[in-house]
């Protein structure tokens, strides 16, 4: 019986010890965990770890966190050495922020923030950054890009538009109009036509002109044609609004109103915009009654017809 009792006591002690150990995590000893995501990040991740409201360690999943690539940065490459943030100076109540902050509303100027990125990323598509309108208006790289996340929204073809229209509100309305490029469907993205990092041409187009950019897809409009329609050769956006319109074919207005902006009664060659005062089959007299300029002038982007001057010069088939 004594043996049995001793055995039971040992069993009971072991059980109670187990219970004690289950709740014994509270006496954990502080451990230096070393670098968690980037090379040399231990100083920062001592405080800024998985407990941050804005996830910081997930930078390890991004290209910036590829430690096998010797060019990748560490925390201080972007945020500065920040000695006063690491060790709070005596007599300072609140710990100073890091040298370079990227948060919205930060005191770090956009130029300074952008220079951090351009230290590595100047060149290529960003060669014109300094002369771009985004740079001139103090847009920071981090206004559009997210560094610490694996999924940078602005690099996703479908979600990119959400980032752009957050500022470009007029275009947000236009891409919801009946006639538009399939932007919302992810078939066309803003960056297909624009280079937000700056370009040599106007409106941050990816090519040097609006037309050159449009021709990258709409090459049949490029020509060369025997008979050119001058506005087509100048700028597609004279007649079209590529972001979206209420008229078919992304036209800024319906025919004949769009056409009559140039082809009016007292100016450029045109048909009268009034009703005929007698029975007639003359197209000149009928004018723009049918409102179907493009029914006859089918080759409005330019024609190669050799039929006769009347047909060819007026972009008829």
């Amino acid at each position, binding site marked *: 019986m004594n043996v049995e009792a001793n055995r*039971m006591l040992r069993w009971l002690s072991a059980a109670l010890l*187990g219970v004690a150990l289950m709740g014994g995590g509270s*006496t954990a000893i502080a451990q230096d965990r070393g670098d968690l995501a980037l090379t040399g990040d231990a100083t920062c991740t001592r405080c800024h770890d998985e*407990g941050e409201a804005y996830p910081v360690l997930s930078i390890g999943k991004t290209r910036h966190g590829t430690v096998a690539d010797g060019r990748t940065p560490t925390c201080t490459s972007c945020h500065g050495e920040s000695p006063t943030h690491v060790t*709070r100076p005596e007599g300072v*109540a609140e710990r100073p922020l890091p040298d370079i902050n990227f948060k919205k509303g930060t005191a770090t100027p956009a130029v300074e923030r952008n220079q951090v990125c351009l230290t590595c990323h100047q060149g290529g598509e960003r060669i014109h950054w300094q002369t771009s309108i985004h740079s001139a208006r103090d847009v920071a790289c981090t206004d559009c890009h997210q560094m610490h996340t694996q999924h940078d929204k602005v690099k996703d073809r479908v979600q990119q538009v959400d980032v752009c229209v957050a500022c470009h509100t007029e275009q947000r309305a236009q891409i919801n109009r009946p006639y538009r490029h399939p932007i919302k469907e992810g078939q066309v993205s803003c960056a297909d036509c624009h280079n937000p990092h700056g370009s040599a041409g106007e409106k941050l187009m990816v090519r040097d002109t609006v037309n050159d950019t449009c021709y990258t897809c709409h090459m049949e409009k490029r020509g060369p044609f025997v008979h050119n329609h001058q506005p087509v050769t100048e700028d597609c956006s004279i007649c079209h609004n590529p972001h979206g319109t209420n008229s078919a074919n992304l036209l800024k207005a319906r025919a004949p109103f769009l056409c009559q902006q140039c082809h009016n009664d007292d100016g450029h060659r045109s048909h009268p915009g009034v009703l005929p005062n007698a029975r007639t089959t003359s197209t000149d007299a009928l004018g723009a009654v049918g409102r179907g300029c493009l029914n006859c002038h089918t080759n409005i982007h330019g024609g190669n017809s050799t039929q006769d001057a009347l047909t060819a010069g007026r972009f008829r088939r």
Partner: protein
Amino acid sequence: MKILSFIAVAVTAAAVSLPVAAAPQVNERAADQLVRKSKCLTCHAIDRKKDGPSFKEIAAEYKDDPEGVEKLTKHITVPTTVEVDGNKEEHGVIDTKDEAAILNVVHWILTR
């Protein structure tokens, strides 16, 4: 013999289940979000020591204290000075005035 075994099992079960049974209803998600938003986790961790003690250590110290809830509530709502690496530093306060949310965080800490 059987009685002793039964007692051992009963004691074990009671010991394991007691803290759970005594724990108040805590909205884990809300507490976690508020603690992160208030940057508590910059200096405290759940189960390891950072600049401040772990929440488990805090819970062990205060959960049996009848005034534990009151003390912790005061600590996270009224600015105080704490010592970090031998230097005096201001202890931050929770980023809300919602008393229910504050109480939820206190109970969340005490149940770590």
